[in-house]
């Protein structure tokens, strides 16, 4: 499969680097233009993607985990080739590597402040305080926003019971009011987002359920008038409401007891 791709690009599978693959693709592309030769282009494109993937795997295999590759590591899965043998020096480097600056990461700091604020036992979080943390310039850059949003999403999914064994329904912690959820969701856009991978899609779908559960919760008085919005469910919905309320009550009691102990 991949040898065909390299042949089409006129490259040697054993020696080609990613730069070679790109250069070969660029050359072939100029005589196989998408608007002139659709089929030819589609074949070339497939070959390019396959070859690029292959050389990237190779790099993953042999490259020591130096700074060049640090960014890619999170994205790529570990190599699965049988003959994979981690180079000895990479282990050493990993062991002796030190973070460059000891200062606190602004995203981590914001995350901790948010969790503290949300789960504070001294009553509902103020929306102004919440917004002050998420709107802070230190965490509004593209990458910081992405990271903080991801960590918070995971936190919310975790605290609402998504990762519990055999989970059947949404578990609502007492502090999670509609106002809190909507303020965070409005900022990070979870329920509106269209994530690219299935794992994130699952988390987003879960948060949609969480919101529905909060909105349909009559026991929890919520300051925002948006709480009046109800779902079209009838009949069985009421039973679930009662069950949900019981679960929440239980959670609140358990939470308070934990605090005492």
């Amino acid at each position: 499969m991949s040898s065909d791709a390299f042949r089409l690009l006129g490259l040697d599978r054993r020696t080609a680097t990613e730069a070679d693959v790109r250069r070969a693709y660029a050359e072939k592309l100029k005589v196989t233009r998408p608007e002139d030769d659709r089929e030819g282009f589609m074949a070339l494109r497939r070959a390019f993607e396959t070859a690029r993937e292959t050389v990237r795997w190779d790099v993953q295999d042999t490259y020591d985990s130096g700074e060049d590759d640090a960014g890619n590591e999170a994205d790529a899965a570990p190599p699965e080739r049988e003959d994979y043998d981690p180079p000895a020096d990479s282990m050493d480097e990993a062991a002796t590597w030190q973070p460059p600056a000891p200062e606190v990461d602004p995203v981590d700091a914001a995350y901790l402040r948010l969790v503290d604020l949300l789960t504070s036992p001294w009553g509902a979080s103020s929306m102004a305080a919440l917004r002050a943390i998420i709107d802070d310039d230190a965490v509004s850059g593209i990458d910081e926003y992405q990271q903080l949003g991801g960590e918070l999403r995971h936190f919310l999914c975790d605290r609402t019971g998504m990762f519990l064994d055999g989970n059947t329904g949404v578990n609502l912690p007492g502090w999670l009011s509609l106002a809190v959820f909507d303020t965070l969701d409005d900022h990070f856009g979870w329920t509106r987002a269209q994530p690219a991978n299935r794992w994130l899609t699952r988390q987003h779908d879960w948060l949609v359920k969480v919101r529905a559960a909060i909105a349909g919760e009559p026991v929890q008085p919520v300051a925002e008038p948006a709480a009046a919005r109800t779902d079209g469910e009838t009949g069985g919905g009421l039973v679930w409401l009662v069950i949900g309320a019981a679960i929440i009550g239980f959670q609140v009691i358990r939470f308070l007891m934990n605090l005492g102990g």
Partner: protein
Amino acid sequence: MTDPSPARTIIGIDLGTTNSLVAVFRDDGPKLVPNGLGEVLTPSAVGYGDDGALLVGRAAKDRLETHPHLTTARFKRYMGTNHEVKLGKKAFRAEELSSLVLLSLKADAEVFLGHSVDEAVISVPAYFNDNQRKATILAAEFAGLGVRRLVNEPTAAALAYGLQDRMGESTFLVVDLGGGTFDVSILEMFSGVMEVRASAGDAFLGGEDFTDALADALARQAGTTAEKLAAGDRARLRALADRMKCQLAEATEAKAEFVLGGEAKPLAITRDAFETLTEPILKRLRQPIQRAIADASLRADDLDRIITVGGATRMPAVRGLVTRLFKRFPEYSIDPDHVVALGAAVQAGLASRHAALDDVVMTDVCPFTLGFETSIEVGEGKFEPGHFSPMIERNTVVPVSRSDTISPLHAAQSVIQLSIYQGESPFVKDNVKLGELRIPLSGGSKADKSVSLRYTYDSSGILEVEATPVATGKMVRVVIEGTPGAIPKEEIEARLRELSALKIHPRDQQENAALMARLRKAFENTLGDRRAMIGRLIADFEGVLHRQDKRQIAEAREQIEGALPHLEHDDVF
């Protein structure tokens, strides 16, 4: 492949929500084409003139304020829908109004080139869906232009920028906020290849939304609301809001007087107040940017250049947001109003295989996921319809072709009614329906009823769906039935006949029409002595026009153009 004879120039067109432009590719690069008034921006406005002939461009834009029922603008937002705009007694679809703008641009290009033109590359927002793209192609056909291809606006912008350093290697992000649409694209350039990595956007977010918000606020200042105003007053207030919005890009405060019911009302807004007012609109810019970067599996630091295009990126708040998100200042070395048209001309040069572009190739992606509706088995023989099954994932390089095999739910079925959708939701109800395909199946309940399904997406972003039942081998192609926004074929022909019967204001009289419209607008926006003087100018000019002496008309025009700036209420200061 194609004959590169100079007489067959393909023109590049930016068909915008607010303004449209046409450009051609020359040996020394892309060149903008001036219109009959000597300007490169032709407002995307259409209306009937006093003589019943249609006016396009600046004259029509100015007449929005004086003749709101006979004039219209911002119709790009209705492309691909059945919405009709009434001008006087006749109702127009967005395709027809767009075709009138295209016709005017085509005439400008023909004068500029000295020969006729019948092919164009037209730019569309990357986030335009299949229906909106097809509507654009139809508009071009109405105007007698074949569309060689559609090019996505941010991609066109990137082409214009990329040409400056064509052999360099870089990754850049284009933020394109136009009058009505918002697009973000990430491109990678290497060895003359320009490759779009990811696109995201919002087809209903643009500079016009900022103007609307400001107009509403100004109406409140004037002690009324935008809805309560008469159509003409509303159009004048909106035009004023637009001028104040532009003023706020330069100054920290804009003041104006609005003549309402014979009374001049003072209006004022500071840049800070404007930014507070438009914060909810501004906030909508973030998500598409985040998504494009996530889809390209990049971090903000990986981007070498951040480029802003589209007139609305002149607003300091928009630039400020981009700077805050990327922690660096965006580039805008090419005029943000011109860059898309220049890029469309580069694409036209590529399409006509211009020798100067031999070493440049551009590849684009489809920004949407394309698929069809399926049912999921929820119990014993029970199926739940409404699920979306993707065929081509978003941000796949185009042209692309993907195939799959589908089967009917029940063995006894004699037909599969396939619904084709575009979107990112797992449920079809949240996605855009593109069409339906009726696939007849033959044989009894024992026969093989699987169908081979193929989706092909071309470089213009147009989808073709084919289905071939394995048993019969008889291919069915997609037929768009009952899709909102698609016009039946017979109706297309009827509308084309009606359009060609319309009387269009001659190009060589555009200057007169535009000046008269400007005079009328000035008359409505002033009071007292100045108003009386403008009234006299109108009467004089009408008299000169009546005599039909070209030399005299030109002289009068020159005089009025000299005097008018002093008389026009400098309503924004």
